[in-house]
């Protein structure tokens, strides 16, 4: 990584100048979107706080907004962050933090442009909230690791080129210490992806069976046995990524219901009015809290509010979508489409109320359940004592299962 300070400080004006240069050299109107995205990455305007040469300019993170605004105004193509969320939100910061130079050079550019989609092979049938209990094994064989096991609830595995994977490399160690972190090539022999149909009828996530998959040691992230520590970086970024998007007032689900309320006076009831006003107010409060979190990050005072935003987002989405189905009454009894689809992106607003109601149930499970996040807030933020634990120091192989 190029050390910060090695480059002259990049300020907002300098960034605007670089955006203009990019737009002059690659006019969005006449440039293929992918070519434009590659050029943008190479100009250091992808994520400006990343190192030079890796899509950034070592600039303060807060200046990304300047670049995004200029490019949006110029009608430049966007890398579809909904489709590549796992790569952008979780894989990238982990690769940046723990990867070798070679890994960063190879992986970050196509990740950012969306040419290569990522998935996250963490959860297993026997290890969800208690992720460190995972049983997928990676055994050393010369320069390779041979991986066997089963992962589950893997979003986007059906379109992913790469996966971040955690596997057990030493069953004699206590569960948190015998795990290593790998990058898995989803096109390798032995990787089998099976759609897993969801409550919504579609299959956004999958089961993934790993049978004798050979992963070269050069695709390990972090030290052998240090995978849990690496995974913490991924998980922390996951929560911020889930709750952290910037939205205008009424920008989330509440806007859809508010519009229906305005356009369809015949649907209104007094009970729903009270609930709608409360949810509107709570959505606005959550939006402001998210804005405050971003302002704290921008001045370098990161708070623990990332988990807070994810929790608020889950609760609100569930309550609002429930209200929406009720508001629609007779129409709320219907559903748009039960065919088994395998979507490439999570689309909350494109489908109808019943879909939103069902999909929002996942918001309090994916990326760590609300219960687990409340435990984390209680212990790490409030400093409350942990619950007694019996599994911390026993070797993993001796744990009751």
């Amino acid at each position, binding site marked *: 990584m190029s050390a910060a300070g090695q480059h002259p400080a990049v300020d907002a004006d300098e960034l605007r100048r670089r955006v203009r240069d990019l737009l002059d050299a690659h006019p969005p109107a006449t440039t293929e979107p992918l070519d434009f995205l590659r050029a943008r990455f190479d100009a250091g305007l992808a994520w400006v706080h990343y190192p030079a040469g890796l899509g950034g300019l070592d600039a303060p993170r807060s200046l990304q907004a300047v670049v995004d605004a200029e490019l949006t105004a110029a009608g430049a193509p966007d890398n579809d962050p909904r489709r590549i969320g796992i790569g952008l939100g979780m894989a990238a910061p982990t690769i940046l933090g723990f990867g070798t130079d070679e890994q960063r050079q190879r992986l970050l550019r196509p990740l950012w442009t969306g040419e290569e989609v990522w998935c996250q092979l963490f959860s297993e049938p026997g290890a969800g909230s208690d992720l460190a209990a995972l049983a997928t094994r990676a055994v050393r064989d010369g320069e390779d690791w041979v991986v066997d096991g089963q992962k589950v609830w893997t979003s986007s595995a059906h379109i992913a080129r790469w996966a971040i994977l955690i596997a057990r490399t030493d069953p004699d160690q206590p569960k948190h210490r015998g795990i290593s972190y790998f990058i898995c090539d989803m096109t390798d022999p032995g990787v089998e992806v099976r759609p897993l149909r969801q409550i919504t009828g579609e299959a956004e996530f999958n089961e993934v069976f790993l049978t004798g998959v050979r992963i070269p040691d050069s695709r390990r992230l972090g030290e052998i046995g240090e995978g849990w520590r690496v995974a913490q970086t991924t998980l922390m970024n996951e929560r911020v990524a889930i709750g952290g998007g910037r939205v205008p007032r009424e920008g989330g689900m509440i806007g859809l219901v508010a519009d229906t309320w305005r356009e369809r006076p015949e649907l*209104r009831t007094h009970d729903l009015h009270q609930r709608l006003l409360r949810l*509107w107010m709570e959505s*606005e*409060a*959550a939006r402001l809290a998210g804005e*405050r979190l971003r302002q704290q990050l921008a001045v370098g005072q990161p708070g623990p509010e990332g988990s807070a935003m994810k929790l608020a987002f889950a609760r609100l989405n569930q309550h609002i979508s429930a209200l929406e189905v009720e508001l629609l009454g007779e129409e709320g009894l219907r559903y748009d489409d039960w065919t088994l689809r395998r979507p490439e992106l999570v689309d909350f607003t494109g489908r109808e109320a019943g879909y939103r109601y069902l999909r929002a149930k996942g918001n309090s499970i994916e990326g760590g359940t609300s219960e687990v996040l409340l435990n984390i*807030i*209680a212990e790490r933020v409030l400093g*409350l004592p942990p619950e*007694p634990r019996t599994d911390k120091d026993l070797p993993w192989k001796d744990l009751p299962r």
Partner: protein
Amino acid sequence: MSTPDLLYSEAEDDLRAAVRSLLTDRCPPATVLSQAESGRAHDVALWGALGADMGTAGLLVPDKLGGQGATAREAAVVMEELGRAVAPVPYLTSAVLAASALLGCDTDQEPVARLLGALAEGRTVGALALPLSTVAGVPGTPAATVRADGDGTLSGQVSGVAGAAGADVLLVPATGADGYGLYAVETAETSVTVEPLTSLDLTRPLAAVTLTGAPARRLAGPDRAATAIGRALLTGAGLLASEQLGVAEWCLTETVRHTRERHQFGRPIGSFQALKHRMAALWLELVSARATARYAADALATDSPDTPVAVAVAQAHCAEVAVRAAEECVQLHGGIGMTWEHPAHLYLKRAKSDEIALGTPGRHRQALAGLVDLAAPTG
């Protein structure tokens, strides 16, 4: 709408530190309680140190009118600290409500400027003679219950006025032949009776004000009085959210401290997940309460067109958060939470009264319905 600044500036942090250190020294819970039981309207010595010596009484008043020339952002920080200490001082009633009402009058007029200067100095205490429950942020003026007679005197009654008992001057909305107006009345007049009421909140007592031909000076006529009072109520409600934040913060901090220390069943009770989740959920609500309270303060400070929405959201949200925090505080303290000696009850009483003050959460949500175009069903 420009992006609001939701953080605290360095100057605001310094102000907070100064106010907090004064309150830690001079206003511990035992002092609050004995003051409340003394029958005095507020802690005169504490108000002297805080309002006059430290200058907080004049934060909202411009320099040229004898104040500190600060904004609602700084006043909000003071309110947070006063809430954290449930301090028995007339900050909300005199430095916020009365001062804001005067700022809405014509400050070029000598009587207005003189009274404002006196309030800003903190030596004179004022109160806006309206029930504390008056709803802020809804169109229309609060109906005056006082009559202005042709001879320049006022007659009538106002009930449930906070801060009246300790006030030197009352700002009284009244209606007369000239229409609606705002008048100043000295409480020292024999034609003014201020009768303390037994109040739910021991730290912010209410009084009934009776005027029987009280000599009064008109500060604003129909052209300005209504907007001045409306603006004062909006400012009061917006800043009250910060007090509620302070109340909630004390309650959560104390509850965490207590449940870490108290042992039952061989464990600190704070290690039981049923309790941890309740405290974590409260913390979450505090995070968003702080954001809404900061937004309301910033909107007031910058005179943003979004101020009515910002205040309604902050009031509706923070009022409920403060009550929940205080109720959880009592519950998770168990038996001692129910005692008179433990300060939890002071916070519960303040939180519940604050919930009604300047409009209940329900009234603020109703105001929102009009502001953001979410109309109620017809019929």
